[in-house]
């Protein structure tokens, strides 16, 4: 009788396992991360679970400093979500990955170039920094055909180039931000546990001898 029950149970188990493979989309994970970087006036975000899987179709909310909801959206198949910055301000990006998973990332106002505000502020009111003067100087030294670039346009070009050059660096940062625990973390944790066992053993020995 036991054998027949075991046999029936194993068939149910197999069926359930096959079914679960079909419905499994939102696998459980221990950690989810969101990382954001600025490119011009666009903000790109990358969301990942521990283990390297991308967080797909997960809602993302963008808040300003006062905690007002500015932008809402969803990540794509690659776990990415890109939005246009609502202005040059501090932003808090919140990823809600469901089933108890949530992650945050802050983007500070300094990370945005001046191009974000350039649309509303006239060019002659832009802060004049040393860099601006050098770019203007180079612009004046260029042949006549290209000198009719305004300062704002030039600044945009420079920023676009820098963004392009920084792309690999940002990629590396994304990898580092979403990386799993290191070997040192793991060994350190095991060491802590064994240390606690040692402390407990010490108290035991002291009680015995007392």
């Amino acid at each position, binding site marked *: 009788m*036991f054998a027949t029950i*075991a046999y029936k149970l194993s068939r149910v*188990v197999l069926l*359930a*396992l096959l079914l*679960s*493979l079909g*419905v*499994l*989309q*939102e*696998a*459980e*994970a*221990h*950690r*989810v991360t969101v990382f954001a970087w600025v490119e011009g006036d666009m903000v790109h975000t990358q969301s990942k679970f*521990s*283990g390297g*899987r991308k967080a797909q179709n997960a809602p993302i909310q963008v808040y300003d400093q006062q905690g007002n909801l500015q932008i809402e959206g969803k990540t794509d198949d690659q776990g990415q979500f890109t939005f246009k910055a609502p202005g040059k301000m501090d932003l808090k990006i919140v990823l809600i990955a*469901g*089933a*108890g*998973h*949530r*992650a*945050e990332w802050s983007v500070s106002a300094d990370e945005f170039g001046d191009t974000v505000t350039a649309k509303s502020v006239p060019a002659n009111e832009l802060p004049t920094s040393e860099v601006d003067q050098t770019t203007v100087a180079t612009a004046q030294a260029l042949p006549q055909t290209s000198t009719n670039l305004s300062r704002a346009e030039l600044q945009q070009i420079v920023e676009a180039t820098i963004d392009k050059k920084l792309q690999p660096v940002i990629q590396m940062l994304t990898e580092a931000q979403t990386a*799993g*625990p290191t070997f040192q*973390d*793991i060994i*350190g*944790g*095991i060491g*802590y*546990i*064994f240390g*606690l*066992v040692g402390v*407990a*053993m010490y108290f*035991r020995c002291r009680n015995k001898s007392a």
Partner: protein
Amino acid sequence: MHISEGILSGPVLISGAALAAAGTAVGLKKLDYDRIAQAGMLAASFFVASLIHVPVGPSSVHLILNGIVGLLLGWAAFPIILVALLLQAVLFQFGGITTLGVNTVLMAFPAVACHYLFRKFMFKTDRAAAVAAFACGFLAVFGGALILGLALMFTEENFFSVAALVIGAHVPVMFIEGVITAFCILFFRKVYPQLLPGVRP
């Protein structure tokens, strides 16, 4: 199965912390000095198990091992899981410090319940012990997913949709843990029966 920071409401966090503290107190009181080394080994295994990713279908899941910890240790599973979760939160950023209590309860409570349900089968026939161990590993994860759904119920709209999602995602882990627990118990029966709970015949 770790709940991140900033999801649960204050009352849920506080009651989770209170339950975890009570469970830990009972566990420390019941923890036999002779079992400290074993408890440490299990804490280390639990701590590392979450790093083992098993590819299932299009994604991957990872082990929890709360079933076997509970089966072997009973109430002592509370302090063990608390310590391991604290280290996971600090070193791996799994879960969080504020959610430590809730996370401890959702993994340790089903583990303790499974201990009392299944310990009497440990010295029965091989097959009964294996089935009981499988059920223990399976139900400990199931119970955890159920409590997770319960905790999320206070923040997300519908308990049934949340619970179904969480339990569905954990089904492969339940089976894997059931099998692992069964193999461990069979191994201990042959090699090191002193580790097993229950009355030896």
